[in-house]
């Protein structure tokens, strides 16, 4: 199923439709319509969510754009939903969900993000680092919204794998990390082993990240993936994982709001400071707040079998029993 788009409206923005969902934007808001309802969100928030959902290929599990709209990844196909994980919509039976091929919904989202992102606005950036998303259409920012996601196959810095970051690669040290040491480990390799004795400065690497809330893979032990990311302001999406996810706070502080995955009822707040380690259970959804740019190590088990294992009771929604 492919999307359709209209000619630009009075503000200069196209409208998009896929399946029974319709999306339009004005100077301040996106309006989403589906057969049983409609919804609005601030456009900056919408673009930040779209950007993450695109960059992550719909990520693990559920990406809630807010308490109503979102996507649920089935790895190959994906649900777009309205009110599916909102208690009131469910009880009133006005929630709506529609399944799309991965590439079809991704294509619709990409076209929408490109048309609706104005020159000077970067949805990956912290609010202090970018221009305004609001107002009538004025240019585009396709370079910012089409950044490649880093996915190391063994480890960043290994010859042939993902490269390190430097001023030369276009990754200056972020203003929030100007005091982070840029030294590299000392590597003394015997002749013939130069490519196998490998280490790098992860903190320096992260200090040069030009995006926020965008986990990317720096090391892989089989399906165990280190997905560190730098965080500032609010995680745009409310992530409802389909598996247990772990956070290791490497620097500074993030506070997490945790809600029930299905109803949105508040369950806990988790305050994480440098050195703290915590799991997010598989039956919750979470949204983080970072007052200063911080380094967060997101640790994922990328096994494709986990959602089915949880459904069958072979894997727990809780991280460990003790």
């Amino acid at each position, binding site marked *: 199923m492919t999307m359709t788009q209209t000619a630009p409206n009075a503000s200069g923005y196209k409208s998009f439709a896929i399946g029974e969902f319709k999306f339009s934007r004005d100077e301040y808001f996106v309006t989403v319509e589906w057969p049983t309802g409609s919804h609005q969100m601030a456009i900056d928030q919408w673009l930040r969510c779209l950007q993450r959902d695109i960059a992550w290929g719909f990520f693990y599990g559920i990406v809630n754009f807010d308490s109503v709209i979102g996507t649920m990844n089935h790895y190959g196909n994906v649900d777009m939903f309205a009110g599916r994980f909102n208690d009131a919509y469910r009880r009133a039976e006005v929630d709506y969900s529609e399944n799309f091929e991965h590439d079809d919904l991704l294509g619709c989202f990409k076209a929408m993000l490109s048309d609706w992102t104005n020159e000077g606005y970067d949805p990956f950036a912290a609010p202090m680092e970018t221009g305004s998303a609001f107002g009538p259409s004025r240019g585009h920012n396709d370079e910012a919204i089409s950044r490649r996601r880093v996915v190391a196959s063994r480890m960043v810095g290994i010859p042939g794998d993902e490269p390190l970051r430097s001023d030369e690669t276009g990754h200056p040290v972020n203003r929030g990390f100007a005091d982070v040491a840029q030294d590299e480990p000392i590597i003394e390799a015997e002749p013939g082993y130069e490519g196998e004795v*490998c280490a790098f400065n992860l903190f320096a690497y992260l200090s040069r990240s030009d995006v926020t809330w965008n986990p990317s893979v720096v090391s892989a032990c089989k399906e165990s993936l280190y997905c560190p990311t730098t965080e500032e302001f609010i995680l745009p999406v409310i992530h409802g994982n389909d598996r247990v996810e772990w956070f290791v706070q*490497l620097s*500074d502080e993030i506070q997490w709001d945790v809600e029930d995955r299905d109803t949105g009822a508040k369950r806990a707040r988790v305050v994480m400071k440098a050195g703290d380690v915590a799991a997010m259970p598989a039956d919750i959804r979470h949204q983080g707040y970072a007052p200063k740019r911080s380094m967060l190590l997101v640790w994922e088990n990328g096994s494709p079998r986990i959602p089915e294992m949880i459904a069958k009771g072979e894997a727990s929604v809780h991280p460990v029993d*003790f």
Partner: protein
Amino acid sequence: MTQYTTVFGSLDDYAKGGVEVIDDDPKYYAFSNMFEVAGRAAPYEKVAVAKNLEYVLEVIRAEGTDEWRAAPHDEFALVMDGTLQVELIDPDDGLVDSEAQGSVALASEPAGSRMGRVTAGPGHMALLPAGKAYRLHSDGVAVVLLQTIEGPDTVHRWAEICQTV
């Protein structure tokens, strides 16, 4: 421009957050702090602080010299405090079953070729390559977070390290 101070933790200086329960059990978050765990661990104990099925993250208090170890898969050592040295040997003979999980201690230094050495400080991450022998060392005390698979020497003491109320 505003000058920001980036806060990293260390064995001697860390602050710990926690779970503020609204309607939940804090055990579901398995909340701990690496520096607190390392502060209470014996040298080179491999204390699991995170686990996802067979995969674990282990906190290691590196102090003095560990035994030689090897794993059939890559492992990654992230230094969170102190200075860590990693010696590597390319063994003449296979050291571990290719299907095994986690690392095992070797009875002695294996015969093979010296590959070299990494000296890593805070924030540095070193590859412990699959099938090679490695030995960790610290002149002082270092805190290491190891990305690996649960093995015979992984220590589980969740009730002691995690927030329970």
